[in-house]
Protein backbone atom coordinates (compact mmCIF):
# COMPACT_ATOMS: atom_id res chain seq x y z
CA UNK A 1 0.00 0.00 0.00
CA UNK A 2 1.15 3.48 -0.81
CA UNK A 3 1.53 5.80 2.12
CA UNK A 4 -0.99 8.31 0.71
CA UNK A 5 -3.87 5.88 0.46
CA UNK A 6 -2.97 4.53 3.87
CA UNK A 7 -3.17 8.02 5.21
CA UNK A 8 -6.54 8.56 3.57
CA UNK A 9 -7.67 5.28 4.95
CA UNK A 10 -6.64 6.28 8.40
CA UNK A 11 -8.50 9.53 8.11
CA UNK A 12 -11.61 7.59 7.04
CA UNK A 13 -11.22 5.36 10.05
CA UNK A 14 -11.06 8.28 12.40
CA UNK A 15 -14.19 9.80 10.85
CA UNK A 16 -15.99 6.53 11.31
CA UNK A 17 -14.92 6.41 14.92
CA UNK A 18 -16.14 9.97 15.41
CA UNK A 19 -19.44 9.13 13.78
CA UNK A 20 -19.94 6.11 16.01
CA UNK A 21 -18.99 8.13 19.07
CA UNK A 22 -21.58 10.70 18.06
CA UNK A 23 -24.22 7.96 17.92
CA UNK A 24 -23.34 7.03 21.48
CA UNK A 25 -23.26 10.67 22.51
CA UNK A 26 -26.79 11.06 21.12
CA UNK A 27 -28.06 9.13 24.14
CA UNK A 28 -26.74 11.80 26.43
CA UNK A 29 -27.91 14.59 24.13
CA UNK A 30 -31.41 13.13 23.83
CA UNK A 31 -31.87 12.74 27.55
CA UNK A 32 -30.57 16.27 28.06
CA UNK A 33 -33.10 17.64 25.56
CA UNK A 34 -35.92 15.64 27.10
CA UNK A 35 -35.05 16.97 30.53
CA UNK A 36 -34.74 20.55 29.32
CA UNK A 37 -38.02 20.58 27.40
CA UNK A 38 -40.12 18.83 30.03
CA UNK A 39 -38.70 20.99 32.79
CA UNK A 40 -39.03 24.20 30.78
CA UNK A 41 -42.76 23.51 30.46
CA UNK A 42 -43.41 22.16 33.92
CA UNK A 43 -40.96 23.81 36.28
CA UNK A 44 -42.30 27.42 36.20
CA UNK A 45 -45.74 26.43 37.48
CA UNK A 46 -44.17 24.01 39.94
CA UNK A 47 -42.16 26.87 41.43
CA UNK A 48 -45.08 29.28 41.27
CA UNK A 49 -47.36 26.92 43.18
CA UNK A 50 -44.53 25.72 45.38
CA UNK A 51 -43.11 22.20 45.13
CA UNK A 52 -44.51 21.04 48.47
CA UNK A 53 -47.91 22.51 47.76
CA UNK A 54 -48.02 20.95 44.29
CA UNK A 55 -47.05 17.54 45.63
CA UNK A 56 -49.13 17.37 48.79
CA UNK A 57 -52.12 19.62 48.22
CA UNK A 58 -55.08 17.34 47.49
CA UNK A 59 -57.17 19.94 45.69
CA UNK A 60 -56.97 19.57 41.92
CA UNK A 61 -59.16 22.13 40.18
CA UNK A 62 -56.86 23.28 37.40
CA UNK A 63 -59.41 25.54 35.71
CA UNK A 64 -59.96 27.34 39.03
CA UNK A 65 -56.23 27.76 39.60
CA UNK A 66 -55.87 25.10 42.24
CA UNK A 67 -53.04 22.76 41.34
CA UNK A 68 -52.34 20.00 43.84
CA UNK A 69 -51.51 16.47 42.75
CA UNK A 70 -51.54 15.00 46.27
CA UNK A 71 -54.44 12.71 45.42
CA UNK A 72 -52.70 11.49 42.26
CA UNK A 73 -49.44 10.90 44.13
CA UNK A 74 -51.31 8.79 46.66
CA UNK A 75 -53.29 7.20 43.83
CA UNK A 76 -50.15 6.09 41.99
CA UNK A 77 -48.67 4.67 45.18
CA UNK A 78 -51.87 2.88 46.22
CA UNK A 79 -52.47 1.22 42.84
CA UNK A 80 -48.80 0.29 42.53
CA UNK A 81 -48.60 -1.16 46.03
CA UNK A 82 -51.80 -3.12 45.55
CA UNK A 83 -50.48 -4.61 42.31
CA UNK A 84 -47.14 -5.49 43.92
CA UNK A 85 -48.95 -7.20 46.80
CA UNK A 86 -50.07 -10.06 44.60
CA UNK A 87 -47.67 -9.90 41.67
CA UNK A 88 -44.48 -10.09 43.75
CA UNK A 89 -45.25 -13.35 45.59
CA UNK A 90 -46.65 -14.97 42.46
CA UNK A 91 -43.77 -13.69 40.35
CA UNK A 92 -41.06 -14.92 42.71
CA UNK A 93 -42.76 -18.29 43.09
CA UNK A 94 -42.94 -18.62 39.32
CA UNK A 95 -39.27 -17.65 39.07
CA UNK A 96 -38.34 -20.36 41.60
CA UNK A 97 -40.54 -22.79 39.72
CA UNK A 98 -38.77 -22.05 36.46
CA UNK A 99 -35.26 -22.09 37.90
CA UNK A 100 -35.48 -24.93 40.39
CA UNK A 101 -38.63 -27.03 40.12
CA UNK A 102 -39.88 -27.33 36.56
CA UNK A 103 -38.37 -29.74 34.05
CA UNK A 104 -36.20 -27.79 31.57
CA UNK A 105 -38.70 -28.18 28.76
CA UNK A 106 -41.59 -26.79 30.77
CA UNK A 107 -39.36 -23.99 32.00
CA UNK A 108 -38.43 -23.01 28.44
CA UNK A 109 -42.06 -23.01 27.38
CA UNK A 110 -43.11 -20.95 30.33
CA UNK A 111 -40.26 -18.55 29.57
CA UNK A 112 -41.59 -18.01 26.06
CA UNK A 113 -45.11 -17.44 27.41
CA UNK A 114 -43.85 -14.90 29.93
CA UNK A 115 -42.12 -13.06 27.06
CA UNK A 116 -45.45 -13.00 25.26
CA UNK A 117 -47.13 -11.63 28.38
CA UNK A 118 -44.54 -8.84 28.32
CA UNK A 119 -45.17 -8.18 24.64
CA UNK A 120 -48.93 -7.62 24.82
CA UNK A 121 -49.59 -3.87 24.56
CA UNK A 122 -50.96 -2.04 27.56
CA UNK A 123 -53.99 -0.86 25.63
CA UNK A 124 -55.00 -4.50 25.09
CA UNK A 125 -54.68 -5.13 28.83
CA UNK A 126 -56.77 -2.04 29.47
CA UNK A 127 -59.38 -3.19 27.00
CA UNK A 128 -59.64 -6.65 28.54
CA UNK A 129 -59.83 -5.01 31.97
CA UNK A 130 -62.63 -2.76 30.77
CA UNK A 131 -64.78 -5.49 29.22
CA UNK A 132 -63.99 -8.33 31.63
CA UNK A 133 -62.71 -7.22 35.03
CA UNK A 134 -64.62 -3.96 35.52
CA UNK A 135 -68.07 -5.53 34.91
CA UNK A 136 -67.09 -8.49 37.11
CA UNK A 137 -66.21 -6.20 40.02
CA UNK A 138 -69.39 -4.15 39.49
CA UNK A 139 -71.64 -7.20 39.43
CA UNK A 140 -70.07 -9.31 42.17
CA UNK A 141 -68.18 -6.97 44.50
CA UNK A 142 -70.08 -3.70 44.23
CA UNK A 143 -69.35 -0.12 43.27
CA UNK A 144 -69.00 1.02 39.70
CA UNK A 145 -66.20 -1.42 38.92
CA UNK A 146 -63.82 1.31 37.75
CA UNK A 147 -61.59 1.02 40.80
CA UNK A 148 -58.26 0.59 42.56
CA UNK A 149 -58.87 -3.16 42.43
CA UNK A 150 -59.33 -3.26 38.64
CA UNK A 151 -56.15 -1.21 38.23
CA UNK A 152 -54.20 -3.43 40.63
CA UNK A 153 -55.27 -6.63 38.87
CA UNK A 154 -54.34 -5.34 35.40
CA UNK A 155 -51.10 -3.69 36.55
CA UNK A 156 -50.07 -6.81 38.45
CA UNK A 157 -50.39 -8.90 35.29
CA UNK A 158 -48.39 -6.32 33.38
CA UNK A 159 -45.45 -6.30 35.80
CA UNK A 160 -45.32 -10.09 36.28
CA UNK A 161 -42.89 -10.59 33.36
CA UNK A 162 -40.42 -8.04 34.76
CA UNK A 163 -40.49 -9.65 38.20
CA UNK A 164 -40.33 -13.22 36.90
CA UNK A 165 -37.51 -12.69 34.39
CA UNK A 166 -35.15 -10.76 36.62
CA UNK A 167 -35.75 -12.95 39.70
CA UNK A 168 -35.27 -16.11 37.65
CA UNK A 169 -31.97 -14.87 36.26
CA UNK A 170 -30.85 -13.93 39.76
CA UNK A 171 -31.76 -17.38 41.10
CA UNK A 172 -30.03 -19.12 38.23
CA UNK A 173 -26.91 -17.04 38.82
CA UNK A 174 -26.45 -18.48 42.31
CA UNK A 175 -23.39 -20.78 42.13
CA UNK A 176 -24.33 -24.47 41.96
CA UNK A 177 -21.93 -25.29 44.82
CA UNK A 178 -24.07 -23.36 47.31
CA UNK A 179 -27.00 -25.63 46.69
CA UNK A 180 -24.90 -28.78 46.47
CA UNK A 181 -23.22 -27.93 49.76
CA UNK A 182 -26.56 -27.38 51.41
CA UNK A 183 -27.96 -30.65 50.05
CA UNK A 184 -24.81 -32.48 51.16
CA UNK A 185 -25.40 -31.19 54.68
CA UNK A 186 -28.72 -32.99 54.65
CA UNK A 187 -31.10 -30.13 53.85
CA UNK A 188 -34.05 -30.89 51.58
CA UNK A 189 -34.40 -29.21 48.20
CA UNK A 190 -36.88 -26.65 49.52
CA UNK A 191 -34.85 -25.95 52.64
CA UNK A 192 -31.92 -25.20 50.34
CA UNK A 193 -34.05 -22.87 48.24
CA UNK A 194 -35.30 -20.98 51.27
CA UNK A 195 -32.11 -20.84 53.32
CA UNK A 196 -29.41 -20.68 50.67
CA UNK A 197 -30.58 -19.81 47.19
CA UNK A 198 -33.10 -17.06 47.96
CA UNK A 199 -30.76 -15.18 50.33
CA UNK A 200 -28.00 -15.42 47.75
CA UNK A 201 -30.28 -14.10 45.02
CA UNK A 202 -31.72 -11.39 47.26
CA UNK A 203 -30.29 -8.32 45.55
CA UNK A 204 -31.44 -9.55 42.15
CA UNK A 205 -34.94 -10.17 43.45
CA UNK A 206 -35.08 -6.73 45.03
CA UNK A 207 -34.03 -5.25 41.69
CA UNK A 208 -36.87 -7.17 40.06
CA UNK A 209 -39.39 -5.73 42.50
CA UNK A 210 -38.11 -2.18 42.13
CA UNK A 211 -38.14 -2.35 38.34
CA UNK A 212 -41.64 -3.82 38.46
CA UNK A 213 -42.65 -0.92 40.66
CA UNK A 214 -41.17 1.53 38.15
CA UNK A 215 -43.15 -0.05 35.36
CA UNK A 216 -46.35 0.06 37.42
CA UNK A 217 -45.94 3.74 38.30
CA UNK A 218 -45.22 4.67 34.70
CA UNK A 219 -48.03 2.67 33.11
CA UNK A 220 -50.68 4.89 31.58
CA UNK A 221 -53.24 3.57 29.12
CA UNK A 222 -54.34 0.44 30.94
CA UNK A 223 -54.77 2.40 34.16
CA UNK A 224 -56.74 5.28 32.70
CA UNK A 225 -59.14 2.81 31.14
CA UNK A 226 -60.06 0.92 34.32
CA UNK A 227 -59.66 3.17 37.38
CA UNK A 228 -62.43 5.77 37.00
CA UNK A 229 -60.03 8.70 37.39
CA UNK A 230 -61.67 10.56 40.29
CA UNK A 231 -59.14 12.94 41.87
CA UNK A 232 -59.69 11.65 45.40
CA UNK A 233 -57.78 9.72 48.01
CA UNK A 234 -59.31 6.27 47.50
CA UNK A 235 -61.46 5.12 50.42
CA UNK A 236 -61.04 1.44 49.64
CA UNK A 237 -60.20 -1.02 46.89
CA UNK A 238 -63.56 -0.49 45.21
CA UNK A 239 -63.16 3.27 45.14
CA UNK A 240 -62.14 5.02 41.91
CA UNK A 241 -58.70 6.58 41.83
CA UNK A 242 -56.54 8.76 39.59
CA UNK A 243 -52.81 8.21 39.05
CA UNK A 244 -50.26 10.80 37.92
CA UNK A 245 -49.98 9.21 34.49
CA UNK A 246 -53.78 9.12 34.08
CA UNK A 247 -53.96 12.77 35.02
CA UNK A 248 -51.73 13.71 32.10
CA UNK A 249 -53.38 11.64 29.41
CA UNK A 250 -56.89 12.43 30.68
CA UNK A 251 -56.64 16.21 30.53
CA UNK A 252 -54.05 16.95 27.81
CA UNK A 253 -56.79 17.16 25.17
CA UNK A 254 -58.30 20.50 26.13
CA UNK A 255 -55.80 21.85 28.63
CA UNK A 256 -54.35 25.28 27.95
CA UNK A 257 -52.13 27.76 29.75
CA UNK A 258 -51.40 27.02 33.40
CA UNK A 259 -53.56 23.91 33.26
CA UNK A 260 -51.36 22.42 30.56
CA UNK A 261 -48.23 23.54 32.39
CA UNK A 262 -49.50 21.75 35.51
CA UNK A 263 -49.84 18.55 33.49
CA UNK A 264 -46.22 18.94 32.37
CA UNK A 265 -45.30 19.50 36.00
CA UNK A 266 -46.98 16.18 36.76
CA UNK A 267 -44.71 14.73 34.09
CA UNK A 268 -41.70 16.32 35.79
CA UNK A 269 -42.61 14.68 39.10
CA UNK A 270 -43.04 11.32 37.37
CA UNK A 271 -39.74 11.74 35.52
CA UNK A 272 -37.78 12.60 38.65
CA UNK A 273 -39.40 9.70 40.51
CA UNK A 274 -38.45 7.17 37.84
CA UNK A 275 -34.90 8.50 37.45
CA UNK A 276 -34.34 8.21 41.21
CA UNK A 277 -35.76 4.69 41.17
CA UNK A 278 -33.38 3.75 38.36
CA UNK A 279 -30.37 5.20 40.13
CA UNK A 280 -31.29 3.25 43.24
CA UNK A 281 -31.48 0.04 41.21
CA UNK A 282 -28.15 0.83 39.60
CA UNK A 283 -26.50 1.36 42.95
CA UNK A 284 -28.04 -1.69 44.55
CA UNK A 285 -26.90 -3.76 41.56
CA UNK A 286 -23.38 -2.51 42.05
CA UNK A 287 -23.56 -3.16 45.77
CA UNK A 288 -24.87 -6.64 45.03
CA UNK A 289 -22.03 -7.27 42.59
CA UNK A 290 -19.53 -6.04 45.15
CA UNK A 291 -20.91 -8.49 47.68
CA UNK A 292 -20.45 -11.24 45.14
CA UNK A 293 -24.08 -12.12 45.50
CA UNK A 294 -25.20 -11.74 41.98
Amino acid at each position, binding site marked *: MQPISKNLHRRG*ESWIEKGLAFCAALFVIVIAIITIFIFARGLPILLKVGVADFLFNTDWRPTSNSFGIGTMLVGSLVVTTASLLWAVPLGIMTAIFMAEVAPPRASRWLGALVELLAGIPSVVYGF*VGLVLIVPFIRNYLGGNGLSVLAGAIILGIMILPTIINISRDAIRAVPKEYKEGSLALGATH*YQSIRRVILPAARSGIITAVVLGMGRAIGE*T*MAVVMVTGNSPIIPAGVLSPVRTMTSNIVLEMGYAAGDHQAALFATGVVLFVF*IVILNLVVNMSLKAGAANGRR
Partner: protein
Amino acid sequence: MAGASGKDKLLTGIFWLAGIFIVLILAGIIGYVLFRGASSLSLDFILQPPSRAGRLGGISTTIVGTVYLTLLALLAAVPVGVGSAIYLEEYAHSRSRFAKLVNLTAETLAGIPSIVFGLFGFVFFVIFLGMGWSVLSGGLTMAIMILPTITRTAQEAILAVAGEYRENSLALGASRWQTVRRVILPSALPGIVTGIILSIGRAVGETAAIILTAGSSLGMPVSPMDPARTMSVHLYIMAMEGISTERAFGTACLIVVLIVIINYLANLSLSRLTKAMR
Protein backbone atom coordinates in the same frame (compact mmCIF):
# COMPACT_ATOMS: atom_id res chain seq x y z
CA MET B 1 -38.84 -38.40 56.99
CA ALA B 2 -42.26 -39.20 55.58
CA GLY B 3 -43.49 -35.85 56.87
CA ALA B 4 -40.69 -33.95 55.19
CA SER B 5 -41.30 -35.63 51.87
CA GLY B 6 -45.02 -34.95 52.19
CA LYS B 7 -44.22 -31.28 52.75
CA ASP B 8 -41.89 -31.32 49.76
CA LYS B 9 -44.63 -32.78 47.61
CA LEU B 10 -47.02 -30.07 48.78
CA LEU B 11 -44.48 -27.36 47.97
CA THR B 12 -43.80 -28.86 44.56
CA GLY B 13 -47.53 -28.77 43.96
CA ILE B 14 -47.76 -25.12 45.00
CA PHE B 15 -44.91 -24.09 42.69
CA TRP B 16 -46.52 -25.96 39.81
CA LEU B 17 -49.74 -24.11 40.58
CA ALA B 18 -47.92 -20.77 40.33
CA GLY B 19 -46.56 -21.72 36.92
CA ILE B 20 -49.92 -22.98 35.75
CA PHE B 21 -51.62 -19.82 37.00
CA ILE B 22 -49.34 -17.70 34.79
CA VAL B 23 -50.24 -19.85 31.80
CA LEU B 24 -53.93 -19.49 32.65
CA ILE B 25 -53.71 -15.69 32.84
CA LEU B 26 -52.06 -15.52 29.45
CA ALA B 27 -54.35 -18.11 27.89
CA GLY B 28 -57.34 -16.30 29.38
CA ILE B 29 -56.41 -12.91 27.94
CA ILE B 30 -55.32 -14.12 24.52
CA GLY B 31 -58.09 -16.69 24.27
CA TYR B 32 -60.76 -14.16 25.22
CA VAL B 33 -59.56 -11.56 22.72
CA LEU B 34 -59.25 -14.12 19.94
CA PHE B 35 -62.59 -15.68 20.79
CA ARG B 36 -64.46 -12.38 20.74
CA GLY B 37 -62.47 -10.81 17.92
CA ALA B 38 -61.92 -13.58 15.40
CA SER B 39 -65.43 -13.24 13.97
CA SER B 40 -64.86 -9.61 12.94
CA LEU B 41 -61.55 -10.40 11.28
CA SER B 42 -61.85 -10.59 7.53
CA LEU B 43 -59.95 -9.49 4.48
CA ASP B 44 -62.32 -6.52 4.21
CA PHE B 45 -61.61 -5.54 7.80
CA ILE B 46 -57.91 -5.37 6.97
CA LEU B 47 -58.20 -3.79 3.52
CA GLN B 48 -61.09 -1.34 3.87
CA PRO B 49 -60.63 2.15 5.32
CA PRO B 50 -62.74 2.98 8.39
CA SER B 51 -65.87 5.04 7.87
CA ARG B 52 -68.28 6.84 10.20
CA ALA B 53 -65.52 7.35 12.82
CA GLY B 54 -64.72 3.63 12.75
CA ARG B 55 -68.27 2.42 13.28
CA LEU B 56 -68.21 0.91 9.80
CA GLY B 57 -65.56 -0.26 7.39
CA GLY B 58 -62.22 -1.76 8.27
CA ILE B 59 -58.98 -0.51 9.77
CA SER B 60 -56.70 -0.27 6.74
CA THR B 61 -55.57 3.31 7.40
CA THR B 62 -54.58 2.45 10.96
CA ILE B 63 -52.54 -0.52 9.72
CA VAL B 64 -50.77 1.74 7.24
CA GLY B 65 -50.28 4.32 9.99
CA THR B 66 -48.74 1.69 12.28
CA VAL B 67 -46.39 0.35 9.59
CA TYR B 68 -45.41 3.83 8.41
CA LEU B 69 -44.66 5.08 11.90
CA THR B 70 -42.75 1.93 12.84
CA LEU B 71 -40.62 2.11 9.69
CA LEU B 72 -39.73 5.74 10.32
CA ALA B 73 -38.84 4.92 13.92
CA LEU B 74 -36.61 2.03 12.83
CA LEU B 75 -35.01 4.14 10.11
CA ALA B 76 -33.94 6.66 12.71
CA ALA B 77 -33.18 4.33 15.61
CA VAL B 78 -31.38 1.36 14.01
CA PRO B 79 -28.32 3.21 12.64
CA VAL B 80 -27.91 5.23 15.82
CA GLY B 81 -28.55 2.26 18.10
CA VAL B 82 -26.25 -0.15 16.30
CA GLY B 83 -23.65 2.58 15.82
CA SER B 84 -23.49 3.35 19.51
CA ALA B 85 -23.38 -0.36 20.36
CA ILE B 86 -20.36 -0.75 18.05
CA TYR B 87 -18.72 2.27 19.60
CA LEU B 88 -19.33 1.11 23.16
CA GLU B 89 -18.14 -2.45 22.57
CA GLU B 90 -15.39 -2.01 19.97
CA TYR B 91 -13.97 1.47 20.37
CA ALA B 92 -14.57 2.87 23.83
CA HIS B 93 -12.84 1.47 26.86
CA SER B 94 -15.65 -0.10 28.80
CA ARG B 95 -14.41 1.56 31.95
CA SER B 96 -14.17 5.00 30.42
CA ARG B 97 -16.34 7.69 31.92
CA PHE B 98 -18.08 8.33 28.63
CA ALA B 99 -19.04 4.68 28.15
CA LYS B 100 -20.37 4.51 31.70
CA LEU B 101 -22.37 7.69 31.17
CA VAL B 102 -23.89 6.39 27.93
CA ASN B 103 -24.79 3.07 29.52
CA LEU B 104 -26.42 4.85 32.43
CA THR B 105 -28.43 7.18 30.18
CA ALA B 106 -29.50 4.21 28.06
CA GLU B 107 -30.82 2.50 31.18
CA THR B 108 -32.57 5.66 32.33
CA LEU B 109 -34.10 6.14 28.90
CA ALA B 110 -35.41 2.56 29.03
CA GLY B 111 -37.16 3.26 32.34
CA ILE B 112 -38.90 6.53 31.45
CA PRO B 113 -42.69 6.07 31.22
CA SER B 114 -44.14 6.37 27.74
CA ILE B 115 -46.41 9.25 28.74
CA VAL B 116 -43.31 11.34 29.53
CA PHE B 117 -41.95 10.56 26.06
CA GLY B 118 -45.34 11.64 24.77
CA LEU B 119 -45.13 14.98 26.57
CA PHE B 120 -41.60 15.46 25.27
CA GLY B 121 -42.50 14.55 21.70
CA PHE B 122 -45.44 16.94 21.90
CA VAL B 123 -43.39 19.98 22.99
CA PHE B 124 -40.27 19.16 21.00
CA PHE B 125 -41.31 17.64 17.67
CA VAL B 126 -44.93 18.77 17.39
CA ILE B 127 -44.56 22.32 18.68
CA PHE B 128 -40.89 23.38 18.88
CA LEU B 129 -39.79 21.88 15.57
CA GLY B 130 -43.18 22.62 14.05
CA MET B 131 -43.77 19.12 12.70
CA GLY B 132 -47.34 19.13 13.97
CA TRP B 133 -49.18 15.93 14.81
CA SER B 134 -47.61 13.72 12.20
CA VAL B 135 -46.17 10.34 11.37
CA LEU B 136 -42.75 12.01 11.57
CA SER B 137 -43.27 13.39 15.10
CA GLY B 138 -44.65 10.04 16.24
CA GLY B 139 -41.92 8.07 14.48
CA LEU B 140 -39.09 10.14 15.97
CA THR B 141 -40.61 9.95 19.46
CA MET B 142 -40.94 6.20 18.99
CA ALA B 143 -37.33 6.05 17.76
CA ILE B 144 -36.11 7.47 21.06
CA MET B 145 -38.24 4.96 22.95
CA ILE B 146 -36.82 1.92 21.12
CA LEU B 147 -33.23 3.16 21.04
CA PRO B 148 -32.25 1.47 24.34
CA THR B 149 -33.63 -1.91 23.21
CA ILE B 150 -31.79 -1.79 19.91
CA THR B 151 -28.53 -0.71 21.48
CA ARG B 152 -28.68 -3.27 24.28
CA THR B 153 -29.44 -6.26 22.07
CA ALA B 154 -26.77 -5.15 19.60
CA GLN B 155 -24.28 -4.75 22.46
CA GLU B 156 -25.03 -8.24 23.73
CA ALA B 157 -24.72 -9.70 20.25
CA ILE B 158 -21.38 -7.97 19.67
CA LEU B 159 -20.11 -9.10 23.07
CA ALA B 160 -20.99 -12.67 22.15
CA VAL B 161 -18.72 -12.62 19.09
CA ALA B 162 -15.75 -14.75 20.04
CA GLY B 163 -12.61 -12.83 20.89
CA GLU B 164 -10.43 -14.93 18.58
CA TYR B 165 -12.33 -13.81 15.48
CA ARG B 166 -11.63 -10.23 16.38
CA GLU B 167 -7.99 -10.83 17.22
CA ASN B 168 -7.38 -12.94 14.13
CA SER B 169 -8.84 -10.26 11.93
CA LEU B 170 -6.77 -7.54 13.55
CA ALA B 171 -3.68 -9.76 13.40
CA LEU B 172 -4.22 -10.22 9.66
CA GLY B 173 -3.79 -6.48 9.28
CA ALA B 174 -7.42 -5.47 9.01
CA SER B 175 -8.27 -2.11 10.46
CA ARG B 176 -10.74 -1.75 13.28
CA TRP B 177 -13.61 -0.71 11.04
CA GLN B 178 -12.82 -3.50 8.58
CA THR B 179 -12.96 -5.93 11.45
CA VAL B 180 -16.27 -4.50 12.59
CA ARG B 181 -17.74 -4.61 9.12
CA ARG B 182 -16.47 -7.99 7.97
CA VAL B 183 -16.33 -9.96 11.19
CA ILE B 184 -18.28 -8.42 14.02
CA LEU B 185 -21.42 -7.16 12.28
CA PRO B 186 -22.17 -10.34 10.29
CA SER B 187 -21.86 -12.49 13.41
CA ALA B 188 -23.88 -10.03 15.47
CA LEU B 189 -26.63 -9.70 12.87
CA PRO B 190 -29.07 -12.18 14.45
CA GLY B 191 -28.83 -10.28 17.74
CA ILE B 192 -29.42 -6.97 16.00
CA VAL B 193 -32.40 -8.44 14.17
CA THR B 194 -33.80 -9.64 17.50
CA GLY B 195 -33.59 -6.10 18.82
CA ILE B 196 -35.37 -4.78 15.76
CA ILE B 197 -38.15 -7.35 16.06
CA LEU B 198 -38.65 -6.54 19.75
CA SER B 199 -38.74 -2.84 18.89
CA ILE B 200 -41.41 -3.45 16.27
CA GLY B 201 -43.47 -5.11 18.99
CA ARG B 202 -43.08 -2.08 21.20
CA ALA B 203 -43.96 0.33 18.39
CA VAL B 204 -47.07 -1.63 17.46
CA GLY B 205 -48.30 -1.58 21.04
CA GLU B 206 -47.46 1.96 22.08
CA THR B 207 -50.45 4.23 22.64
CA ALA B 208 -49.93 7.06 25.12
CA ALA B 209 -46.92 8.60 23.39
CA ILE B 210 -48.43 8.20 19.92
CA ILE B 211 -51.72 9.93 20.74
CA LEU B 212 -49.80 13.02 21.84
CA THR B 213 -47.41 13.08 18.87
CA ALA B 214 -49.05 11.50 15.82
CA GLY B 215 -52.59 12.56 16.61
CA SER B 216 -55.55 10.32 15.95
CA SER B 217 -56.73 11.34 12.51
CA LEU B 218 -58.38 8.51 10.63
CA GLY B 219 -57.21 9.58 7.17
CA MET B 220 -54.68 7.67 5.11
CA PRO B 221 -51.23 9.09 5.90
CA VAL B 222 -49.33 9.77 2.70
CA SER B 223 -46.65 12.30 3.51
CA PRO B 224 -44.66 11.88 6.75
CA MET B 225 -46.10 15.24 7.76
CA ASP B 226 -49.63 13.81 7.78
CA PRO B 227 -51.26 12.92 11.08
CA ALA B 228 -52.04 9.25 11.57
CA ARG B 229 -53.79 6.84 13.87
CA THR B 230 -52.11 3.56 14.76
CA MET B 231 -53.96 0.33 15.53
CA SER B 232 -53.39 0.64 19.26
CA VAL B 233 -54.69 4.21 19.32
CA HIS B 234 -57.66 3.04 17.27
CA LEU B 235 -58.38 0.28 19.80
CA TYR B 236 -58.19 2.79 22.65
CA ILE B 237 -60.61 5.18 20.95
CA MET B 238 -62.99 2.41 19.84
CA ALA B 239 -63.10 0.99 23.35
CA MET B 240 -63.33 4.23 25.31
CA GLU B 241 -65.76 6.01 23.00
CA GLY B 242 -67.87 2.89 22.79
CA ILE B 243 -68.02 3.42 19.02
CA SER B 244 -68.05 -0.25 18.15
CA THR B 245 -67.22 -3.03 20.59
CA GLU B 246 -67.17 -5.53 17.76
CA ARG B 247 -64.56 -3.57 15.82
CA ALA B 248 -62.58 -2.91 18.98
CA PHE B 249 -62.36 -6.66 19.52
CA GLY B 250 -61.37 -7.13 15.88
CA THR B 251 -58.57 -4.59 16.25
CA ALA B 252 -57.43 -6.08 19.58
CA CYS B 253 -57.45 -9.51 17.97
CA LEU B 254 -55.28 -8.36 15.09
CA ILE B 255 -52.82 -6.66 17.47
CA VAL B 256 -52.54 -9.80 19.59
CA VAL B 257 -51.98 -12.00 16.54
CA LEU B 258 -49.26 -9.60 15.38
CA ILE B 259 -47.58 -9.63 18.79
CA VAL B 260 -47.65 -13.43 18.91
CA ILE B 261 -46.01 -13.58 15.48
CA ILE B 262 -43.44 -10.95 16.45
CA ASN B 263 -42.59 -12.83 19.63
CA TYR B 264 -42.27 -16.07 17.73
CA LEU B 265 -39.88 -14.45 15.26
CA ALA B 266 -37.86 -12.89 18.07
CA ASN B 267 -37.55 -16.28 19.76
CA LEU B 268 -36.51 -17.84 16.49
CA SER B 269 -33.76 -15.33 15.83
CA LEU B 270 -32.74 -15.51 19.49
CA SER B 271 -32.30 -19.28 19.35
CA ARG B 272 -30.31 -18.85 16.17
CA LEU B 273 -28.17 -16.36 18.03
CA THR B 274 -27.50 -18.73 20.89
CA LYS B 275 -26.63 -21.43 18.37
CA ALA B 276 -24.25 -19.06 16.64
CA MET B 277 -22.58 -18.37 19.97
CA ARG B 278 -21.44 -21.97 20.26
